[in-house]
Each structure stands twice: as C-alpha cells, then as structure tokens.
C-alpha cells in the first residue's frame, strides 16, 4: 500500500519536532560498518504517542513498529518493545494499546507472548473512521 503514504518529510518534521509533537519515535541504529547496501544505518523504528482512557487515564499508543527484514531475528524488536514498556511505566501509563490486522499471525503471536490481550475479541470493540470529505460535509452544515 506504498502509494497510500502521502505524508511528506516537511509534515513529519513539523508534526514531530515542532512546538507540539503529535508523535514520538524510537529508532534503532547500527554502526556504519553494518549499514545497508543503500547506506542506511537506521534500520528499525517505533512510532508512538499518548492517548487517554477516561476510566484509567494515560495510555501509550503504539502506532507503527518495523524492523528491516535483514535485521530481524537479533532481538531488536524485543528491545524496542522493552524500551517502550519502560517509557510507559515511567510516564505513568496504565497500559499500551495498538491495533493488529487479524490475519497477521506472526505479529499476533509476538504480542501475545508478551501478554497482549485482543480487546476486539474480549470486549467487542470495532474501529471506525470518518474521512475528511465527510468531516467537511458535517462541518459545513
């Protein structure tokens, strides 16, 4: 779905590193002698932000989480999740939330091994979205 990524570097910069960050990122970097054939040393990342549950308070929301294929199997993903867990505990979050596609068995197992519960299954939550066009329609009324 690469063509659906319309976000630009300019927007990422403003939104993440301006006065009010709308997201935070953790990156994994390898020494330059292990860089990829294209010369990249940043080989994994996690994007997260803080959300709020009106029953219990602050939550850490894991939005994106990716390790480049050639660098998998070395525990980088586990380490990223560990640092995120530390961040969540330090910032007094009650839990970490995220979504997973129901057919992504590998990720589901990865998370379940670490204690994740499927709230869509257990509590029946469904994710809804209203797109920009419909929002404009509503705001103009």
């Amino acid at each position, binding site marked *: 779905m690469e063509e659906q*990524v319309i976000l630009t570097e300019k927007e990422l910069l403003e939104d993440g590193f301006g006065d009010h960050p709308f997201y935070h990122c953790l990156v994994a970097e390898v020494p330059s002698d292990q860089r990829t054939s294209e010369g990249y040393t940043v080989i994994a990342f996690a994007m997260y932000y803080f959300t709020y549950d009106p029953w219990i308070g602050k939550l850490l929301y894991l939005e994106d989480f990716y390790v480049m294929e050639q660098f998998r199997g070395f525990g980088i993903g586990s380490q990223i999740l560990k640092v995120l867990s530390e961040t969540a505990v330090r910032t007094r979050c009650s839990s970490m939330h995220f979504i*997973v596609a129901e057919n992504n068995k590998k990720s589901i197992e990865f998370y379940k091994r670490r204690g994740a519960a499927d709230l869509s299954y257990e509590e029946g939550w469904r994710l809804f979205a209203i797109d920009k066009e419909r929002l404009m329609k509503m705001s103009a009324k």
Partner: protein
Amino acid sequence: MEYKLRKAEAKDVPDILRLVKELAKYEEMEHQVTLTEKELLEDGFGDTPFYHCIIAEIQGGGSSDDAKVVGFAMYYFTYDPWVGKQLYLEEFYVMDEYRGLGIGSEILRHLSDLAMKTRCTGMMFVVAENNEPSIQFYKRRGAEDLSQEEGWRLYRIDKSSLVKMATPGEE
C-alpha cells in the same frame, strides 16, 4: 431548550468525571472507573494536556449559576504515519433526559469543524459491536467500520505485563 457548547475548563473536571461515570454505568462498568478528579485535572489542564473536552451546557432559568453540564465529548490528536494528524474521539455522551434535542449532532459538527481547522485527515473512534444505536448514528454520518473492512483488531498490553517487559529478566 437553550444549550451551548464550549471548551472545557479546569472547573468542569467534577462534571466530566460525573458524566464519565454515568456513561460507564450505562455500560454496566461503573466500578472500573478508577480515575480521580485530581488526575483528570493534572492530565487535562496541566502543561501538556493529554485530552481535550467539549462541554454541552443547559442554561438555567435564573442566573448563570444555574447552568448545568448535560453532555460532553473527550478527544485528543493521534497520528497516522501514512496521512498525518487524526482527531480521535475517545468519549461522547449526552445525559438521557437531554437527548433528541440535537446536542449530539451539534457536538459532532463542532468536532468536524475542529478537525478541519487543525488539519486532521480524519476522525477515529471505537464502538462496541453490540451498540446498534451508536453504530447507526455514526454510519448515517459517513463512518466506516475499519474492523470489518480492513480487519483491524484492538490489542492491549496491561501494566503488569509492561512492568515485566521493562524490568531486566533472566535473559
């Protein structure tokens, strides 16, 4: 009946917690609300707000002291790495006796306006699969069920599991 919508202020925290508990009661989960007024105050009206609220207030007959908070929406901004900022609607409730007056629609219109002003590309929220009235309310306004269409499921790693992961283990 005259009502007005406005941005919540620190003084509204007791009413926000009251309405959060009322909605939880409606879902038969009132005992699960452990949040306190102190936390709501710090988290919403401190240096970094973690949430924002819109309040619906009914004007009393007499002085402005008669104003009563009868509905609210709690929201915050999230980020989609493909398209950017989103407005996330976390909680949305109008007291039973004040429904049918268009307060809910007006709150949603206000939020749509806000989403446009803050350059959000969409609004997201979760709905319980058995909550037919809410599902219909949102579908009438163009909402799509992404769980159904794209297979997304919401997961949670709770605090005890986070603490387990954060603390160095035997590895």
